[in-house]
């Protein structure tokens, strides 16, 4: 799979949830080449401020129309500039990058998807692909557990429920749906409803992924977790996007995988979760001062 540079054009940009924007880009080659779960590096602004590209998932891929959609949350300088770009602005893309999601082999059994916050972004394309290739599976056997900190941060109902899949929503502050973390919602619901997914997909903050990973390992369910790291190049050259990983058999040395070229999709078993210590992020207000 070869990667390339493409000059994209902003067709539309809309705020779809709190601090969350959906961007539609005309990018014919990228739309043709990209798979669900892959990502691209976007130069959010011309010039040297900010300096580096930013990684974004393909939220939707429309090869027919020659365009792609990006769903992003404003968390810092780069995404803030991006949110201020008007239609017709040109943006340079580098992609498609990374491994992408694998669709389940046995099309008959249910699938679970856990999305935390902006982690929903790549999962939307995945859901569409699952629906398109589901064979004998009913749409409602695709179980989406979708949580965020607060109601305002969730995507509107119609975007997801209309697809006929089973959607379970929750918020950390209880302002909508289940009151608590989405991983608890998932754990409880899976138990109560005896959901035994053939594959567990997830995207969201690392703290969430850790809980998802633990569940997957406990229940011996194959998992495909879309993980993040800080990236400079996106193509495996800088070695900056490392995550602590289980060492190859026979080795006890520290070992790292690189999210951009080995991922961003990893099985729960390949990451050494106990070596990752995360923390809450800053209130966005200060990032732009």
């Amino acid at each position, binding site marked *: 799979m070869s990667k390339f540079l493409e000059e994209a054009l902003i067709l539309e940009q809309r705020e779809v949830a709190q601090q969350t924007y959906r961007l539609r880009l005309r990018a014919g080659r990228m739309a043709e080449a990209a798979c669900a779960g892959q990502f691209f590096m976007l130069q959010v602004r011309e010039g040297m401020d900010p300096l580096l590209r930013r990684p974004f998932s393909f939220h939707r891929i429309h090869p027919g129309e020659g365009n792609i959609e990006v769903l992003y949350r404003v968390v810092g300088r780069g995404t803030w500039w991006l949110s201020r770009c008007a239609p017709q602005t040109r943006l340079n893309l580098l992609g498609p990058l990374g491994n992408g999601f694998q669709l389940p082999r046995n099309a008959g059994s249910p699938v679970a998807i856990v999305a935390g*916050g902006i982690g929903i972004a790549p999962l939307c394309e995945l859901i569409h692909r699952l629906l398109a290739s589901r064979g004998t599976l009913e749409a409602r056997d695709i179980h989406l557990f979708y*949580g*965020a900190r607060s109601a305002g941060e969730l995507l509107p109902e119609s975007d997801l429920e209309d697809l006929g899949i089973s959607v379970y929503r929750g918020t950390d502050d209880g302002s909508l749906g289940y009151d608590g973390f989405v991983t608890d919602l998932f754990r409880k619901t899976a138990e109560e409803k005896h959901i035994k997914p053939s594959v567990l997909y997830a995207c*969201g*903050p690392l703290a969430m992924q850790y*809980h998802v990973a633990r569940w997957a390992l406990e229940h011996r369910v194959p998992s495909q977790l879309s993980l993040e790291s800080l990236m400079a190049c996106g193509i495996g050259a800088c070695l900056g996007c490392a995550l602590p990983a289980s060492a190859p058999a026979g080795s006890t040395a520290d070992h790292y995988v690189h999210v951009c070229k080995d991922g961003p999709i990893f099985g729960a078993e390949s990451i050494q979760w106990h070596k990752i*210590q*995360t923390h809450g992020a800053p209130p966005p207000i*200060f990032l732009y*001062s």
Partner: protein
Amino acid sequence: MVASGTFGYGEEYADFLDLTQLGAVVVKGISLAPRPGNPPPRLVETAAGMINAIGLENVGVDVFLESKLPYLRDRHVPVIVNIFGNTLEEYAELAARLDGVPGIVALEINISCPNVKSGGMIFGTDPAMAARVVDAVRRSTTLPLITKLTPNVTHIGEIARAAVGAGSDMLSCINTVAAMAVDIFTRRPKLANIFGGLSGPAVKPIALRCTYEVLQAVDCPVIGIGGIATATDALEFLLLGARAVQVGTANFIQPAVTAEILRGMELFLRVQKLQSVEEYIGTLDRQCLFPFAEIACGMTDLP
């Protein structure tokens, strides 16, 4: 505080801010005799920074005391005088002249300016020389002494220790980073002085590292300088343990930036539920965490 050489003698900024808000004004470096400074061009812009080679142009201590200092003193703005000499004797004489002058709260010894031929950097890059300058000044004044360090050394901690050992009450760091720029068409330097000092946001990561090293080397109060343009920048230096900061180049771009930084810091302290900045200074935890992604979801309870 505002950094030396970037705030003139205070008056220049009176249209934009209430000078009494400032902790202190560090005035442009003063020498015994007036200095004309370097020939132009003296400035060049670089990526997120600028290089200057002003050459310590200043009116000399006499004119300073007569016609510059009164403006700030009358407004009750504490003045820190940045001093500079070509010889140890000049430093000492200058310090003596400023001793006991009302309105002056401290001296900042500039041993680190890269833009002049003699003195300056030579004093700042050798621990023994640095100690001799500080010692000479120390003997000539009862004012609190701040020694301003240059980043252009292998071990900034050693210079810091030498300065404190010789009697410096505080340290400030950093001065500008030695740099140059050339024009590919004329095939000539962009500064008449060839070399100059880099400042602005570009140098902040270097300034933070230097401040950290200095804080590890000495126990005295340290003033952070270098690339500060926002409250966030200022707080970074305080987090490391700096007791105060100076704002330099950013004044040129936003003349009211110091007032904005103070406002931003107050907001930060309020949001973080801190009573005073003292509670924040030096609270860095050296263990790093994964810095991202939690924003998407409130979870923070990892193993």
